[in-house]
């Protein structure tokens, strides 16, 4: 069986397997692997207050982005507007329904679950407790990260708007600004290193 080493003292490069002993970093400093140049870790202190604030802001923005239409299109007196869910449901009924399933997961469900899981993990941690399903929640957060694509959906919406301006009157709606803000918030939130959260939670182990 494996025995646990002092995890604070060693770090192994995920990209080339080189072993280093950790040294404390100053704020905003990053440690890079000498052999392959990959990032090893950042300044060790993850501010749970900041992460929680970002999570709550993301949750509010998520609601706004999804409740309001993203674009409105006017053509010869007719008009169409679409929220994210209008888009998903319409695509589901079309000849390429499978695309809707993928889009729903990557632009709606994964970001939503990420926000909820961050709240689930961070609120107790801030109070000095570890949530019951901490391990499962942290694994889910890590697995979902690459498949959560709000930023790509956001760029897709912008491209669609510009494409349509050539043929019709297009008006970006509140939902588009909602998604733009959500993109930034989630980008900052997922830039925090989950490894640090694991390390911090370890201090709470009894």
């Amino acid at each position: 069986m494996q025995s646990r080493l002092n995890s604070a003292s060693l770090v192994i490069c995920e990209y080339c397997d080189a072993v280093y002993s950790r040294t404390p970093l100053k704020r905003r400093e990053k440690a890079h692997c000498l052999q392959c140049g990959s990032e090893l870790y950042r300044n060790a202190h993850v501010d749970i207050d900041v992460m929680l604030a970002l999570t709550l802001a993301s949750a509010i923005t998520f609601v706004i982005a999804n409740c309001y239409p993203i674009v409105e299109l006017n053509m010869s007196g007719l008009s169409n507007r679409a929220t994210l869910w209008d888009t998903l449901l319409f695509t589901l009924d079309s000849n390429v329904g499978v695309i809707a399933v993928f889009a729903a997961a990557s632009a709606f469900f994964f970001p939503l679950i990420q926000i909820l899981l961050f709240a689930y993990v961070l609120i107790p941690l801030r109070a000095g407790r570890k949530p019951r399903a901490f391990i499962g929640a942290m694994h889910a957060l890590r697995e979902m990260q690459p498949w959560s694509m709000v930023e790509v959906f956001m760029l897709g919406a912008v491209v669609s708007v510009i494409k349509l301006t050539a043929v019709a009157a297009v008006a970006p709606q509140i939902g588009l600004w909602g998604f733009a803000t959500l993109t930034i918030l989630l980008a900052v939130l997922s830039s925090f290193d989950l490894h640090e959260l694991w390390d911090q939670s370890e201090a709470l182990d009894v």
Partner: protein
Amino acid sequence: MNNSSRARDLKLISCHACGLVLDNREELNHARCTRCDEHVYTRKPNSLTRSWAYLIAATILYIPANLLPIMLTTKMYNTLSSTIVSGVIDLWQDGAWDLAIIVFTASVVVPILKLGLMTFLLISTQRRSTWRQRERTKLYRIIEHIGHWSMLDVFVVALLITLVHFNKLALVQAGSGIVAFAAVVVLTMLSSMNFDPRLIWDTDEPKPRTPPDNDKTNG
């Protein structure tokens, strides 16, 4: 820094999920992390085989993804079908060159780059090449981070078919090419996720699992 110590030689494993460094003195190829209960491996299991499988599947699907139409546009009873590449050309000819560059990058450059570079990384790693290992690791990190941007066209098609449905006046319908294209992006992402970049640096030993030699002493 070609003589820096490696975790495998020191009989250490780091957990890819939580970063904990584990002692692997018994040289198990597979164990569980004591902190997060994740399966940990010295190297991702069957990394090259899995990575190749996804890559080959992606390369095959790349052909229908580019030949089949992704969008059918009807304007005043005229139906035009467009593929990924013709969509970019149309944008360029309409004068939206800035948009054309964005879509060209996300839908043409990134997928080709990913297919090409993954093939290159897999072949060079299989041959245990020591050529520019640092740069090849960097290439892998880039591939890891740009892959999902290719989904751009998928979202654009979903939005356009929803917004533009004014019966015979103006109608946008999706073509089956977009399904193949989405599959290409997902498969290349799976291919790069299954590739273990540490294999780029495993160039010294001819066989990955040889019993320890007698003349090697344990610390």
